């Protein structure tokens, strides 16, 4: 428990000292996969709470919100990012293992967790005239997470900045490819299922 507290505290430290901290979580045992998953879960929970509890002025009017969607899409994004990144960095001499990738990705979400929480609270206090500040917090969160992802990749894989950015671009393409593959597999699976059901149907009709 004490270890966990220390690691979570270290995640906070990471948001402002990314280069040192990403190095430490990889080589100095300052982070763990357990903490990474806790951070990931926290990010998902914050996202769900943001859907449900954002103030009326800034929230969406969607009534039929299903939190399962958020969980599935978040997990999909996370794992497809990790897999695509791992595939590409393996090819381009990255020094990070799959575990390292999972860790730096989840740790990078810390600013999102903090700022989104602030946004949820603030959305219930602010009025429309202050929307700019509310939006700014959102942009800040995105920019910060993006910055951490880049530095995390840079540190974990021992890349140069140019290489990081190129790999980042290809990772995003890789994620799209993974999504396409999954859709295709689903479609083919559906075909197979329907084929088998037709065959069974046919057989039953012939026999009877």
């Amino acid at each position, binding site marked *: 428990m004490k270890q966990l507290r*220390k690691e979570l*505290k*270290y995640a906070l*430290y990471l948001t*402002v*000292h990314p280069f*040192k901290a990403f190095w430490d979580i990889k080589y100095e045992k300052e982070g763990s996969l357990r903490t990474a998953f806790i951070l990931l879960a926290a990010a998902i929970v914050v996202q769900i709470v943001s859907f449900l509890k954002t103030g*009326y*002025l800034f929230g969406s*009017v*969607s*009534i*039929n919100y299903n939190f399962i969607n958020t969980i599935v899409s978040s997990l999909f994004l996370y794992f497809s990012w990790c897999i695509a990144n791992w595939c590409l960095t393996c090819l381009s001499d990255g020094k990070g293992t799959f575990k390292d990738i999972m860790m730096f990705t989840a740790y990078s979400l810390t600013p999102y967790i903090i700022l989104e929480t602030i946004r949820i609270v603030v959305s219930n*206090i602010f*009025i*429309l*005239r202050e929307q700019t500040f509310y939006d700014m917090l959102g942009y800040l969160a995105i920019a910060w997470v993006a910055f951490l992802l880049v530095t995390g990749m840079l540190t974990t894989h021992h890349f140069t900045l140019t290489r990081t950015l190129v790999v980042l671009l290809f990772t995003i393409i890789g994620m799209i490819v993974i999504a396409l593959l999954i859709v295709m597999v689903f479609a083919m699976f559906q075909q197979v299922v329907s084929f088998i059901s037709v065959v069974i149907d046919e057989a039953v009709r012939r026999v009877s």
Partner: protein
Amino acid sequence: MKLKKTGLIFCLTAALLAGSGSLQAEAYYNESSSSSTFIYNEWGYPLESPDAYEYSRTVDLRTVGEYSLTNVTDMCVTDENIYIMESTLGMIFRFDTAMNYIDCLKDFTLPDGSATTLSKPEGMYIAPDGKVYIADTENFRVLVSDWEGNISLVVVKPENLLGTSLKNFLPIRVVADSVGRINVVARNINSGIMQFTSEGYFSGYVGAPSVSVDALSKLLRKFYTDAQRAATTTYVPTEYNNIKIDKNNFIWGTISALTAEDVINTIVTQDLSGAVTPIKKLNMKGADVLVRNGNYAPVGDLLTPSKIVDVGLGPNELYSLLDSSMGRIFTYNGSGILLYAFGGKGTAKGESQLPVALDYMGDNIMLLDSGLCSVLIFEPTRYGKLLIDAERYYQEGEYDTANECWRQVTELNSNFAYPYIGLGDAEYNDGNYEDAMDYYEYANDRESYSNAKERIRKNEMSVGFPYIAGALLIFVFLFVGKGIFIRVRRYVRGERITYGGGDDES
């Protein structure tokens, strides 16, 4: 609690409608050739509404006295009388408020004593002092007369008319303001409404669109050839087709020469600037002062662009636009929110063939149908009466009574967001900002919600500010104090100050 439930149902209906999308809208739209009443929701889809007006009766004008009428073109309603203009005969018929024929005006005497008649007149205006203003179209003149036919003024084509290639002056509509200035809409004049002094001198155009040129196109024009320059000259038609004047001397002009593309663009972008508008409310200077606070600007039909041919000025700042292409009447309140739309083209009861003019007599709507040569009279139902009364009470500041009207409206029609805004406003003016916020949320009026919230926050802040500020001060003091204390202690002990790392603070 009850409020919450209603709101939920309202939201659910809205969500359902949004979800099923255009299909549902289309389905409703097809059957709405019947003259049933509808409104638009905030996404611009038609929603059924209780009838606000019901058809009362038709007055057949094909035979009036010993005359047979064929081509009625204009109608003017004063407090005591209703006047109908017949173009082919060149006559004006006078009726009482129950639409019983009284007399007519046919023969006129010019100021020099010679007799004259009208030739295909299209419009007229009866001033409150009894003066008759006639747009004598085919005689190219505007006449000012009394009801005996003694013409006091003849307005002809102005001599000093610059910038137009006007051959003939074809006045079609005329109104006069309370000091006798004459405003004329003439066919093929697209510079605005022609304004004449009470002596008949042309004083200028009002209501012409102000053409603005942005810096980029100004710069580009410097590099254009003459041919290009000629090709880019944009032509903004503002051919008014009808004008009305209200008690405060505001001129209401309708425009039907709008391209469907522009109108659709205005609807889709929810443009409330009034750059493209079929209705303008012009002040003395000719500036459009119409309030457009609805989700959509008052343009009539949101699905197929309307051809607005007349505006009826009703009680309590309500006004109705007459769409001649679908035969519908769209009634807006002073803030530009659509209250109800009804009517249709056809031969069934309450439907018209070729509607040309619309006027209010009290709360009743009078519709002049040129096709059937008749006047259709519509009377407000309980629902319509409630909406009209609510407007009046709200304008008079009787918020409690207005509140009650709106509450009854929501009971009759929970699909209508506007009364919830009204209820919210009433609560807001009473200082019940929490309740107001609830109502605004149903109506999905974020702006008003935000205002109410600001008031609440202000109150809370004035109560809680000393505590919050005190707590913050103590917090900051402790935080800073601790940092200073640690640094001083380290300095005293002679330690090196390191930053970050997390492990050096234990």
